[in-house]
């Protein structure tokens, strides 16, 4: 019970400590932290529109966070989410524009195929690890760049609409949620949010409730024992990379179908995949933890631009704050120790 209590308390304290340091930084360069943070939180919750956009900016992080977390749970470090996300975006943009299908079906088809391509892309790294024992960290890093340039080439050579972008997807493929968007004053809310929550639940169920999940985690913990128990280690490695990549691909798909309606030639990485690593880790690599940490992470980074707009405070401060929060969450031992000290103080006071 105490540990469950700490599981709530530690992150909260970590967040507070992070914001505190941020406040000190603001003061150090002559900004007013109160004003800064009110701008920040205004930027997050201030209006229906902001709330809506916060949720929108959180959505892709849930997908990438889940992708990284799933891989971690099965003993793999997938730094390739960035690239798998791109593959998903491209696939969805293509199917969304090139095919013509009835509404819902079209959107679903695009998402599903994006999951397949994203999964296959990640499976390359899985295969190379399983068969040739190549460290997945290297391959996934390399595959990021390969994905980026392949996508750029395909768009430029075969699939560009006007300028550097793909043609817009057909309405039938869109994941927009007009009603909800209206409610949030035209914030770009879309079905992807729902999908992300469903996938989080699915991941939880797959990992912790199913036979396959039992196998995948066993292989991650101790491949020798898994082999002894008759599990096919290689196939499980490929599978878990594929699932992880599929989650990333889905993220790319909903970003294309729900937010932009097109994809384009990219000058570099959006960083959403790398942020996914942070999200997964803050969330303790647990699907539901990922939901919460995505909210935290996405909220703060989204709100930071109002901070800059209204108070002229550099958004980097929020990067620093986020960094510190991650650090404090990670060093739970530190926080626990502080809680402990605090409690003991309390008791002494109580006694005297």
């Amino acid at each position, binding site marked *: 019970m105490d540990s469950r209590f700490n599981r709530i308390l530690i992150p909260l304290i970590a967040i507070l400590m992070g914001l505190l340091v941020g406040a000190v930084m603001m003061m150090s360069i002559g900004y007013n932290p109160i004003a800064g943070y009110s701008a920040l939180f205004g930027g997050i919750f201030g209006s229906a529109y902001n709330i809506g956009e916060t949720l929108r900016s959180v959505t892709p992080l849930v997908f990438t966070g889940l992708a990284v977390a799933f891989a971690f749970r099965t003993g793999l470090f997938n730094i390739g989410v960035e690239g798998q996300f791109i593959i998903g975006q491209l696939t969805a943009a293509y199917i969304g524009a090139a095919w013509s299908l009835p509404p819902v079906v079209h959107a679903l088809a695009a998402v599903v195929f994006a999951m397949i391509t994203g999964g296959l892309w990640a499976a390359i790294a899985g295969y190379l690890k399983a068969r040739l024992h190549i460290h997945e960290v290297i391959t996934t890093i390399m595959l990021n760049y390969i994905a980026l340039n392949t996508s750029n080439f395909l768009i430029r050579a075969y699939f560009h609409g006007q300028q550097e972008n793909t043609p817009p997807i057909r309405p039938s493929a869109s994941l927009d949620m007009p009603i909800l968007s209206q409610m949030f004053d035209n914030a770009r809310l879309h079905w992807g949010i729902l999908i992300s929550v469903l996938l989080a639940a699915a991941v939880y169920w797959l990992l912790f409730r*199913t036979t396959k*999940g039992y196998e995948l985690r*066993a292989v991650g*913990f*101790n491949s020798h*024992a898994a082999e*002894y*128990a008759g599990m096919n280690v290689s196939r499980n490695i490929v599978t878990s990379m594929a699932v992880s990549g599929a989650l990333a691909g889905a993220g790319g798909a909903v970003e294309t179908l729900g937010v932009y309606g097109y994809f384009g030639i990219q000058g570099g990485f959006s960083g959403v995949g790398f942020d996914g690593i942070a999200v997964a880790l803050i969330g303790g690599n647990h699907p539901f933890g990922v939901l919460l940490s995505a909210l935290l992470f996405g909220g703060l980074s989204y709100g930071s631009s109002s901070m800059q707009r209204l108070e002229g405070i550099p958004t980097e401060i929020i990067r620093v704050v986020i960094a510190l929060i991650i650090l404090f969450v990670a060093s739970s031992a530190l926080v626990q120790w502080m809680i402990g000290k605090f409690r003991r103080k309390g008791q002494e006071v109580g006694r005297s």
Partner: protein
Amino acid sequence: MAAVVEMLGITKRFPGIVANDNIHLVVEKGEIHALLGENGAGKSTLMNILFGLYQPDEGKIRVHGKDVKITDPNVANRLGIGMVHQHFMLVQPFTVTENIILGSEVTNGPLLDLAKAEKKVAELSKRYGLDVDPKARVEDISVGMQQRVEILKTLYRGAEILIFDEPTAVLTPQEITELMQIMRNLVKEGKSIIFITHKLKEIMAICDRVTVIRRGKYIDTVSVKETDPDKLANMMVGRHVQFAVEKEAATPGSSVLELRNVEANGNRGVKALNGITLEVRAGEIVGIAGVEGNGQKELIEVITGLRKTTSGTIVINNQEITNRTPREIAESGIGHIPEDRHKRGLVLDYSIGENMVLNTYYKSPFSKSGILQFDKIFSHARRLIKIFDVRTPSEYTPARALSGGNQQKAIIAREVDRDPDLLIAAQPTRGLDVGAIEFIHKKLVEQRDNGKAVLLLSLELDEIMSLSDRIAVIYEGRIVGVVKPEEVTEHDLGLMMSGATTDKGREEAAT
């Protein structure tokens, strides 16, 4: 004689359990003092305290009559206390020399002087008759030699008081006799030794006095001359223990396992099995006797599908399973108690409950259409924990937190409970206390009496002798003879194991 170590009223608590509860241990100069107790009794803990790895909650320690606080291994080293840990503290990729000098290196200016260090090591090993190759990598040498490295580590640091935590659990009989000789040399050199073992005859053989603890409590310290194995077993377990395995003569039935000229390569690509032919029939226990490293490991791996054969056939229940997947083979009726419990036997991060279904998790009732049935899984675990007396806080405890002894019981429970046609038991009682051993031997015999086949692999000759109905002797990847235990003495067996019978043949081959 003066007491070199006095541990008085030592108490150590761990979350949920009192590992040591007011324990006394007094060791005198030049004696070999045995520390005896069940698995989880608190022996390793007590020794870890003496070596400064744990701090006692209560009690005091005197060394050479002076009160001391042993805050960390450095202090222990300075007090001349050295420990040979139960789980070796060796850096696998390092050479023997590097491991020995680690922490007090031989240098030449700022640089390591390995050449000089190797000389030193060679001298030491000569002086105490501890034969090691200073240049060899630890990962490449036998467990016995690794142990000698551990001992050299302590001697290199000038230890006067040596702690041996279950050194013999992992040794071959030959190595054990060697170790005994080494220990005798050491006491001749004026060292004092604390010796933890579960094997009473070892205690009777070389110890002067023995301190017995049970469930963390001090029972008594007696002189070996005034006691005998039965008394000791009684003191330690708290009841009478049956050593001799009682079993009727076997009534072998149809053939369950059959290997014909099986060949396979070892890890380094060299041939480890060359032409094994062996049969195990229903209702009999076949023991494999052999010096470690003669192909036992590979033999089991090819049978269970963990290693590919290069030629030959393996048949189980009249169906060929050569080079099938481990799962297919397991399904065809094989149970396997693996030799390395931490590497293969358990997923240490899974709960005991989850480990109890490690190879049946996908079957009904534990899995229904791909979904795990946790209620079934954990009730199953509760049942086994009860029957096999696994000492664990609960079925939800991670396997990592269990005493190795109890980890072993958990594995045996899992495999025996599957009631396989052929049960392969590799080193099933390694590191277990007499009570546990008695229990496990009973279980194996039960299997046999229920008409199942058992393939027993053990380095303990007397275990092989007392359990087996037939003994197959393995030497250099070949079965060099099959005998009945009542027809051979341990001595003959030892000769066969050392390849005596085939010496001539080898010489010819060599020329």
